[in-house]
């Protein structure tokens, strides 16, 4: 019997080794995927009851803080003193619905889980929680100017510093106040969410980086950069014929200028008056390849590396698509049909031109500060893409300055500052159009780039972008330049 008993021992050992192996898999190797499982609320519960750091604007205004609550299931809840102004940036922090915005992307920092372990132990003994505050790059004043400028018009405003990618304003209307959604009382939280979901135009959606639109004529700066980079054009030639309409190959549907105008000329002329016929011609002549290449180099067809959750990619169809769709290529070259962009992406386009062709990774985090006021993390600017040569960027800048000085974007001019810009009016049918403007200033040493869209306006003239969007962008530019002195 002894042999069998020894074998039984070996068998039991094998069984226990199997248990140990499986334990390693569950405890360690698959732990991350289990912890991230949407059905798993453990991490949320823990974070919900823990103290949590503040989210602070660039000027020190508190945007989110934890407040103790009595009774009920939880000890704390989040409060957002600025309400809807920073809703799309801070996001909410709800037990039932998870989190969004900075609350999500910097959860580990806010919850204080990034501190070194040994320090944790000391903190534990001191009964202190090593939470950290996250300071963001947006000054309250600039954000407020963006909101007031847009008013109750559906749309978005994005401003950033082209030199390092810092976001200076990120506003979409409608927005929402995250406080109600983050209530410790889950019934209240649920009711707030129901209300927001029932509200028109989905206030929960940060349109600035999660919704794409036809960029309209603002996209002509991309077409211009593509033409310059590919050698199809230079500042002197070609000199496009003065036309009222241009009929691309493969169709008899002409592309017309706004208001039936006649236009043409060299690059600076055609950008200044936003000449559809000339840009459509440029697109057709240089072909899809350079256009898509430059757009991609600016970030199209890729999610921007912003430190906010789930940004969407702006899109342009691949070059092959246009082979049999030359008329679509002509429309795409003027920002219609096969191209869609987020307001964030268009601000990045302006920023790339302003920054000599280099696209900096956009970000909202400035620094992370611990309880003792020590900066434990500071955002390090990083280059995302090189979209064009400095020469190309300089040429486009020159043309964009002309657009403001003597063209459709006159309303963008910040007094005393050389401003570069480009308007856009993206037709979306039913005599509705999106009014766009992108721009940056000062043109000689840009510190702020901006993009504004006012969605679904009545009317469809090239003046719309200049008239509707330019004043908003100008105010934001002025405020951001002031908040961000060189």
């Amino acid at each position, binding site marked *: *019997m002894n042999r*069998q008993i020894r074998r039984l021992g070996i068998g*039991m050992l094998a069984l226990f080794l*199997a248990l140990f192996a499986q*334990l390693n898999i569950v405890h360690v190797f698959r732990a991350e995927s289990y912890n991230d499982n949407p059905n798993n609320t*453990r991490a949320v519960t823990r974070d919900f009851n823990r103290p949590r750091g503040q989210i602070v604007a660039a000027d020190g205004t508190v945007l989110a803080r934890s407040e103790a609550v009595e009774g009920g299931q939880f000890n704390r809840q989040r409060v957002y003193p600025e309400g809807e102004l920073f809703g799309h940036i801070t996001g909410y922090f709800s037990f039932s619905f998870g989190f969004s915005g900075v609350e999500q992307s910097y959860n580990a920092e806010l919850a204080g889980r990034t501190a070194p372990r040994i320090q944790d132990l000391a903190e534990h003994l001191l009964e202190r929680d090593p939470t950290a505050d996250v300071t963001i790059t947006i000054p309250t004043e600039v954000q407020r100017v963006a909101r007031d400028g847009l008013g109750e018009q559906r749309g978005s405003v994005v401003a950033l510093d082209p030199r390092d990618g810092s976001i200076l304003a990120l506003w979409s209307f409608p927005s929402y106040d995250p406080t109600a959604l983050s209530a410790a009382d889950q019934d209240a939280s649920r009711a707030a969410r129901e209300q927001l979901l029932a509200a028109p135009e989905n206030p929960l959606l940060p349109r600035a980086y999660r919704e794409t639109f036809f960029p309209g004529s603002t996209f002509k700066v991309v077409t211009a950069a593509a033409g310059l980079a590919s050698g199809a054009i230079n500042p002197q030639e070609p000199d496009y014929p003065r036309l009222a309409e241009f009929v691309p190959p493969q169709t008899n549907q002409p592309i017309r200028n706004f208001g039936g105008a006649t236009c043409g000329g060299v690059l600076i002329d055609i950008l200044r008056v936003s000449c559809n016929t000339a840009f459509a011609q440029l697109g057709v002549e240089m072909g899809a390849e350079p256009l898509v290449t430059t757009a991609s180099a600016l970030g199209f067809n890729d999610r921007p590396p912003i430190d906010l959750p789930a940004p969407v990619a702006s899109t342009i169809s691949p070059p092959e698509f246009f082979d049999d769709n030359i008329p679509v290529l002509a429309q795409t070259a003027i920002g219609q049909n096969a191209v869609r962009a987020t307001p964030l992406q268009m601000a990045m386009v302006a920023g790339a031109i302003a920054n000599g062709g280099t696209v900096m990774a956009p970000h909202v985090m400035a620094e992370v500060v611990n309880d003792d006021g020590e900066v434990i993390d500071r955002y390090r600017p990083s280059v995302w893409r090189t979209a064009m040569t400095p020469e190309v960027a300089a040429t486009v800048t020159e043309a964009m300055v002309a657009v403001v000085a003597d063209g459709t974007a006159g309303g963008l001019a910040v007094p005393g500052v050389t401003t570069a810009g480009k308007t856009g009016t993206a037709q979306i049918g039913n005599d509705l159009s999106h009014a766009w403007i992108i721009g940056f200033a000062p043109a000689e040493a840009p510190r702020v780039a901006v993009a504004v869209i006012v969605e679904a306006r009545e009317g469809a003239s090239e003046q719309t972008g200049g008239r509707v969007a330019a004043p908003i962008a100008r105010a934001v530019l002025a405020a951001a330049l002031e908040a961000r002195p060189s």
Partner: protein
Amino acid sequence: MIGALRRSTELGLVLLGGVITASIYTLASLGRTASLPADIGPFLGVVLGLVLVAHVATRRLAPAADGILLPIAGLLNGIGYVFIARLDENLAALQAVWTAVGIGAYIGTLVVIRRIRDLEQYRYTLMFVGLALLLLPLVPVIGRTINGARIWVQLGPMSFQPGEFAKIVLAVFFASYLVEKRELLGMASVRIGPLMLPDLKHFGPVLLAWGASLIVMFYERDLGSSLLFFAVFVVMLWIATERWAYLGVSAVLFGAGATVAWRTFSHVQVRIENWLDPWQDVADRGFQTVQATFALAFGGITGTGPGLGSPGRIPAAETDFIFAAIGEELGLLGSTAVLVAFLLMVGTGLRISLRADNPFEKLLAAGLTAIIGIQSFIIIGGVIRLVPLTGITLPFVSYGGSSLVANYVLLALLMRISDSEERPVGAP
């Protein structure tokens, strides 16, 4: 001499286990998500004190017995107590009482049974008692169904799970029966192809055990006990006869029973489906398994710390799923420690079995050890989804009076066998 050495080892280990348990308890009471009222602190003292009482009793009653088993049982009991108290403070006092009863049963067993061999003569009585205990919950009026399993018996104000005791009684019966018949059962007389098999009529006991375990599975819906009962019997049969054929035939029988059960019984199907893919019904059928998985994953390597996790979300965390609660708060390190504790128990039990001269004692020790090993494997494997979940308690750790008392009796039997090995023949 060896006795004295073993007893001082035991004392040292018991104290060490007490320190470990008390430390975890202290940490758990500091944890912010747990609120341990001060008044259950004394119960911990009671639990730890009881293990010491058991140690002192062992000094008198089984002085030469092994010195590792009791400290391990005490440690597991202590850790289990801390987690039970942390999960449900109302159960803490009860578990302390059960521990007292368990230790009482341990001492009582050592007092009453001075020689294991004496049990042999009650062989058939034990068989009937064992079968009766096994089937008792099926008796109308006193049988109770709790959480879908009809494994409870209610007598007046008291309710218990007779199955926990049946497994021990039947192990004693198996051991004596198999030792007597092992020559007969071990003879190979039938040739089927290249295999020499024992006479078919000797498979009768196997079929009987199989039938009994099927009854437990079908009528009491207690998959875990059914599996344990059958597995322990088969292992003992194999050890006694030294013939692989019994293992093979039993495996086939088990497979047949499992397949029929899977095809026929929805509750078995649910278990299998949950094992294969608990994610398809996370909110309901897969909830328990998924929550246990989340708990373990959340614990990671070092655990959340006692009192800092949320094991309360796992249904039956105090009983069958207590291993997941330990895994969450003590991490891979803690759960592995529990595994090692059981492995040490199994190793010690088998060593006792190996050293026994008397075949009956040898086989009984192996069988009792197999109960501990297989039972802990079945439930831990089920909780961590290595095998389909078949609910059963984790010996010494889970909340539950019947389980705790029965396991202490089992421990006492092992200690008694161990003690007799080390004493000269004829000594008291």
